[in-house]
């Protein structure tokens, strides 16, 4: 940057010098233009100058020139008249102009020499600058190369580092994955173990429950029998109270089968083993009928199992 700035500075300086020189030349030409007829050859520097000066001014100048031309044509006649008058003046002025031309030519030569020298110097300087710039550029390039190298190296390093990092990360990841897998496996094992334990526990609980149920069923059955037994006792006493054995010989016995509905109402009585004495059988039947409703448990299950149908063996001895 700094290098470029220096080169630009030099360039601007050279430009300024050119402008200054051209400016001086323009100033002098303006002076002459007012007095002399513009010539196409002579206008060359003007054109050159026009490059330097502002384009707007050139346009204005052109316009002005157009107007002046028009005026000149208008005045042409006038001037033809005047030309003779001025011929003499012109010859004098031509002389003066030649002198001026000489002067200008010398000045131009001097200026060209100076400019040549300046240009050489400038060229030298530019060369120098260029060299310098090249050096700088080279240096810069070297620097760049170096930087590039460094950058490359750095990048390489970074890449390497990154690779290492990646490798490391991969390793870590692998490690982590392994660990995760292990963990998973462990967890799975744990879960399996837990599941198995739970399943075992559940199975044991189920078995326990089953056993308990079975035990309960047995207990229930035992309880039902106990309950049933108690009610059988009550039924027996109630039937006995209604069993009129007066006048019967000893040794008679019969078996009845009765059917009851919940609540103990006897709905049917059948002699399934006769005593051989129809009166004895009937006394038994009447006992069962009269004892109705018989005391039975409210528990429907027990009733259904033990009381829907009951047999009585009448054997008063």
């Amino acid at each position, binding site marked *: 940057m700094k290098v470029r700035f220096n080169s630009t500075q030099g360039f601007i300086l050279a430009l300024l010098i050119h402008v200054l020189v051209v400016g001086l030349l323009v100033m002098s030409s303006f002076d002459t233009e007012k007095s002399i007829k513009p010539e196409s050859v002579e206008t060359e520097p003007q054109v050159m100058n026009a490059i330097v000066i502002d384009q707007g001014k050139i346009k204005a100048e052109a316009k002005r020139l157009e107007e002046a031309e028009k005026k000149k044509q208008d005045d042409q006649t006038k001037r033809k008249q005047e030309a003779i008058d001025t011929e003499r003046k012109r010859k004098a002025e031509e002389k003066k102009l030649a002198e001026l031309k000489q002067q200008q030519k010398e000045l131009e030569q001097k200026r060209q020499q100076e400019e040549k020298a300046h240009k050489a110097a400038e060229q030298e300087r530019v060369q120098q600058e260029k060299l310098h710039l090249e050096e700088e550029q080279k240096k810069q390039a070297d620097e760049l190369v170096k930087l590039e190298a460094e950058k490359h190296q750095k990048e390489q390093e970074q890449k390497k580092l990154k690779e290492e990092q990646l490798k490391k990360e991969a390793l870590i990841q692998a490690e982590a994955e392994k660990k995760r897998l292990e963990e998973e496996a462990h967890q799975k094992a744990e879960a399996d173990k837990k599941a198995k334990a739970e399943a075992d526990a559940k199975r044991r609980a189920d078995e326990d429950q089953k056993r308990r149920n079975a035990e309960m069923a047995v207990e229930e059955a*035992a309880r039902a029998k106990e309950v049933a037994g108690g009610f059988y006792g009550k039924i027996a006493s109630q039937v006995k109270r209604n069993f009129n054995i007066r006048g019967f010989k000893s040794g008679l016995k019969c078996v009845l089968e009765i059917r009851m509905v919940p609540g103990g109402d006897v709905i049917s009585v059948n002699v399934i083993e006769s005593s051989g004495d129809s009166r004895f059988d009937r006394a038994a039947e009447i006992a069962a009928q009269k004892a109705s409703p018989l005391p039975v448990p409210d528990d429907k299950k027990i009733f259904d199992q*033990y009381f829907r149908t*009951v*047999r009585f*063996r009448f054997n008063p001895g």
Partner: protein
Amino acid sequence: MKKIAQALLTIAGLNLAGLHLASPVFAEEVMTIEITEGVENATPIAIVPFESPEAGLPVNISQVVTDDLESSGYFKTMPVTDMPSQPNDFKSIMFDDWKRMGMDNLVVGKASETASGYAIEFRLADVYKGSQLTGLRVMSKASSLRFAAHQISDVIYEKLTGEQGVFATRITYITVKKEGKKKRYHLEMADADGSNPVVLFSTSHPIMSPVWAPNGHQLAYVSFEEGNSAIYVQNISTGKRQMVASGRGINSSPAWSPDSSKLAMTLSKDGNPEIYIKNIRTNQFTRITNNRAIDTEAAFSPDGRNLVFTSNRGGSPQIYQTPVSGGSAQRLTFNMGKYNAGASYSPDGKMLTFVHQSNGAYQIAVLDLDYQQLTVLTDARQDESPSFAPNGNMIIYSTNRGHRSELAAVSVDGKIHKRLTIRGSEVRDPDWGPFVR
């Protein structure tokens, strides 16, 4: 737990062996409950008033039946006022109403007039089964309506007790009626309940010990009408009398053989009162006893092979038994007090009834010959002349109440006592006649 339950069941008198089988399966199990006891109650029976002809009946039949059954002691009859309804035929019976009242048996019937008298129809219903146990149509003359009622009672009794009824049997006895200063002795016969008395023979001399021939047609008795005692046999329907023993001394205590062909009796024609058997057809006497003590009051066993009699050969009056075919007599009453006399067999031959003295009172007792079990059935001071009913369930006897003597009956188990209302200042020497064929 099971032990306790078992113990409870044992206490309850049950044998629930099936309960040992601990089956958790709730299938219906048919258990057998043992009923090892019963009660001895009168059997409930309701005799609904019979439908009568518009003109009415000379005898209230349903009332007679009710009284018969009630008097037997085996029945508890329902008062008419307690009856839920009074049906007269089987199809009108609302069994549930009677069931609710605890009624086991129900009798319904009706009497209607016929050309020769009445037709009585009745049905005995089993209330719990809603079925008919028995039914009968009895034709009767107006004069025998009461007996027809007793026949109905017998049918019901037999159906329900298994024993033949004795309501339509008759009794014979002696009444003494005062006519001014004199006494008049009557040989009478009546229905078993003492109703319908009929005089068969009457005399101003004492008569005693009438006994009914097993064939039902004859009576034998002792009469003093000739001055001395004599034994007569009288045909009931013809009234024809025959003197069968009138020897010197005592002629007493006639007793029929089961076939009604022979009479056992006490005669002292040979000096000492001994037991003889007289064949009525052949007029032959057979001496059964020969002992220096008094042997008297003989009675045949139902099989006719043995005689029981009273003898004081052991020092006090006791009951002996001797074979009719000859042989030595055996004493039957040991350790049963100082006085046991006037025995007779029960119809089944397993028991004797006689007068037993205890604590100075003469009472009616029965002796179970198999078990040597003496049971005193009465508790008055002076009871005499016991006689089994033909079904063996009751014993009729005479009992002295103050200066009067009357008839009473007691069941062989001693549970039923009844008094027969028979007119007369003195009613004694009853004998229960056989079943009427």
